[in-house]
């Protein structure tokens, strides 16, 4: 059962070849064996998972099963799950047990999926290597001396190491797509507003979006069918008709217009990555797609704008972690201010503090116009670039990450180098567009991701383009150690 896709597992469960309890136990055993080295999970609770599996078996027996009923899914530890410790990768929430469910968690519960455990992540989703987690770095199953990417690094490593058939991630500047690329997974960041943010611990509210991480586009479509939908508890959730994201998977690609932004194909990208990407584009042409050059002239300012907007929102979002009502409070303190200072100084890690400082600075009186407002202007320009580009093409393609998985500690001393690993993904969040990363080959033995960017609400089209490519190639089926 280990290594099967969601679709295959669903069929096996439906045919009673395996029960959900058995399947869940298989994965729990594998986690017990592999997690000590990979460190993909922060919290595993076999009792809870197996109880859910038992309930799923009852649903299966009663003929009340959906496509994901009984399938264990790993949940990024950014989602509040009732009764589960929910840490967001931070010492600040080491002791926090959520009294309520995120909408995403509630939807998986309703679908009968089993919560397999909470996956490791960069602290408060701030990082591109999963090295900022209070619970230690996650190792890339393709090479344990390397990072899995971040911030959804635990989810990526869990799926890549076959400790989970699929996982949830969140993507604020590339946090689904980049780890998917570095771990040979398929990951999708939906259009902003498609998946509810209720119960998803906020990093940068205007950019955060949850999505699936799995081993195929088809599995991502099945996951998104569960995750997406309007939620009246999230004011930025979009009220739209329900979609079946699997509906267009098999559509032929003949006539598909692929836009290749010249800014994606210039300097700054490793040669091995570029070669794999070019080969993938050639494959798409073979499948009947046309390619045209497009331009995203303002994309070059994306990283700068992002590192103003995201920290600004984060500095405010993280103010609630003050040691007053829940979470970490320093053991010894004098007055109130001292309690705040010590609790936050001890509870947050270095990268979180750096971003709080940057965010506080750019929102300060006298700097707001020069930084925050200017960044918002750039954001609009970038969104307009995409609007123009999508007048001429259906899907934009390019590399997800400029490099393959880098070594643990290799970039952690240089924040700017680290920030540049999101150079191709950030613009998508700034514009609120859907983006995917799919496996497209290897460079130096390490996975390379191809990024697919769609127009607003074009998830089904992206999944279609990804699925047809995966049918024709098979890079996504490669597993570490094979």
């Amino acid at each position: 059962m280990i290594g099967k896709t969601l679709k295959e597992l669903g069929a096996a469960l439906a045919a009673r070849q395996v029960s959900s309890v058995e399947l869940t136990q298989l994965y729990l055993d594998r986690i017990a064996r592999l997690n000590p080295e990979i460190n993909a999970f922060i919290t595993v609770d076999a009792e809870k998972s197996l109880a859910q599996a038992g309930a799923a078996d009852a649903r299966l027996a009663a003929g009340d099963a959906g496509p994901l009923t009984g399938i264990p899914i790993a949940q990024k530890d950014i989602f509040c799950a009732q009764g589960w410790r929910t840490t967001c990768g931070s010492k600040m929430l080491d002791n926090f047990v959520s009294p309520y469910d995120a909408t995403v968690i509630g939807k998986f519960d309703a679908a009968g999926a089993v919560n397999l455990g909470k996956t490791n992540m960069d602290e408060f989703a701030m990082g591109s290597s999963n090295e900022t987690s209070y619970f230690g770095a996650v190792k890339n199953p393709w090479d344990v001396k390397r990072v899995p990417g971040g911030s959804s690094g635990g989810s990526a490593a869990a799926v890549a190491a076959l400790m989970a058939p699929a996982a949830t991630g969140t993507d604020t500047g590339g946090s689904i797509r980049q780890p998917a690329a570095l771990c040979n997974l398929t990951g999708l960041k939906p259009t902003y507003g498609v998946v509810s943010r209720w119960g998803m611990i906020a990093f940068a509210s205007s950019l955060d979006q949850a999505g699936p991480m799995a081993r195929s586009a088809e599995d991502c479509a099945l996951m998104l069918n569960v995750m997406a939908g309007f939620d009246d508890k999230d004011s930025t959730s979009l009220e739209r008709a329900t979609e079946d994201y699997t509906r267009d998977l098999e559509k032929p690609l003949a006539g598909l217009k692929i836009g290749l932004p010249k800014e994606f194909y210039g300097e700054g990208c490793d040669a091995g990555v570029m070669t794999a990407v070019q080969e993938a584009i050639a494959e798409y042409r073979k499948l009947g797609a046309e390619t045209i050059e497009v331009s995203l002239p303002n994309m070059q300012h994306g990283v700068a704008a992002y590192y103003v907007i995201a920290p600004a929102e984060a500095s405010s979002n993280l103010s609630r972690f003050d040691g007053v009502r829940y979470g970490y409070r320093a053991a010894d303190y004098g007055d109130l201010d001292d309690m705040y200072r010590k609790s936050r100084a001890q509870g947050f890690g270095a990268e979180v503090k750096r971003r709080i400082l940057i965010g506080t600075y750019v929102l300060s009186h006298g700097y707001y116009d020069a930084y925050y407002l200017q960044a918002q202007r750039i954001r609009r320009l970038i969104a307009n670039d995409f609007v123009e580009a999508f007048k001429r093409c259906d899907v934009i393609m390019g590399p997800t990450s400029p490099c393959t998985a880098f070594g643990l500690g290799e970039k952690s001393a240089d924040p700017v180098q680290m920030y540049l690993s999101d150079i191709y993904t950030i613009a998508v969040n700034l514009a609120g567009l859907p983006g995917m990363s799919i496996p497209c080959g290897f460079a130096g033995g390490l996975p390379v991701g191809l990024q697919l960017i769609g127009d607003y609400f074009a998830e089904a089209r992206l999944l279609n383009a990804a699925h047809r490519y995966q049918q024709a190639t098979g890079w996504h089926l490669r597993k570490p150690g094979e």
Partner: protein
Amino acid sequence: MNQWEVVIGIETHAQLSTRSKIFSGASTAFGAAPNTQACAVDLALPGVLPVLNRGAVECAIKFGLAIGAEVAPKSVFARKNYFYPDLPKGYQISQFELPVVVGGNLAIQVGQGDKAYEKSVRLTRAHLEEDAGKSLHEDFHGKSGIDLNRAGTPLLEIVTEPDMASSAEAVAYARALHALVRWIGICDGNMQEGSFRCDANVSVRRPGQPLGTRREIKNLNSFRFLQQAIDYEIQWQINEIEEGRKIQQATVLFDPETGETRVMRTKEDAHDYRYFPDPDLLPLVISRDWVERTRAGMPELPEAKKQRFIADYGLSAYDATTLTASLEVADFYEATVAVAGKAAAKPCANWVMVDLAARLNKDERELADSPVAAAQLGGLVARIADNTISNNIAKKVFEALWNGEGSSADEIIEKQGLKQITDSGAIEKLIDEVLAANAAMVAEFKAGKEKAFNALVGQAMKATKGKANPQQVNELLKQKLS
């Protein structure tokens, strides 16, 4: 005082009468046990999101219409960032650059009787925001308690231009605003419970000079304190300047015990609130249609009612203003006139404004629980108007109604035989008896003592137990003595 000009602006926080909070579904009812009306959103648990209460917006629209302001088609919620234990998110959601209500005017009447004058106070803006919780410092030995029941209660912050020139004008404004928000049903006006609290910005200057430095007196929750605090502050500022010191911009608190203001914080330790648009909330868009639907559901406004009272009932501006001080008084008055008849509108006004008000005052009762209902009072005034009883007898009947001695004026007049004697034959007979019994007074009158005439009238009225028509008695006496 003439050598100093006083400049006052007022900011009022009116708690809106919605059942649930502005961004959560928790109840706003006052007086519940601490923290029993604080849901996940109010507690600012990780991952929670605000959803705007349309009822609160409706209140803001009503207010905008009531003061002739512009209801902004688009306004924006912003975060005001600061740390305090009763502010769970570490920021307050408020409106900053784009408030929901812009401009407007409020007519006020300052002083009483002949010295009364009218003035129009310009409003700058009114914006929606959430209230904070409460810090309780008294009941916890060496610690502070936090009650978050109030956190998230909707407030409308109403800001004036610096248009008031004395504490009397400030109080008149506060009273008029208090009456208005209750009139349109958006605030219960309960000042003891903090539903309506004022901050006064006070400065003084020599005539013709630029504005002086202001000090803001915070959280005044009674009209008396508002008056006392401003008077104290004016005198304090004048003294400071006259003694050669400069006023420092500051926020001060009024101590009702000492009657003095004391500095809470100065400009130096003012916060940088780092306002920025709340990314969790979309801009508030109010359609023309929504405004018009709200307008259609609004009661007649005080100013319109006042003008109607002047036109329809022939009241003076002063009377009309007094009778439209609250919707309750206005309704009571109109119900009185409805029974007494429009011709008796003026005496009705006097009865409501003078006699009834004095009686209520004596028993420390509110109009709402007046023992004499509007219909009863109207019935009484009708009997004065048709000469069934005199004004003096009417006072007796009123007192009887007050004490529940009968259900209507007619019943009491009948039961107690108070009907005015208008039969001139009967009165003539009585006068003859009085003249016969008071020969000495008659002689005095004839000798030129005018006073003796009044004494004879008194005797005659006494003989009829006050039931004779005084006018008639006067005339008959004159005839007899001439």
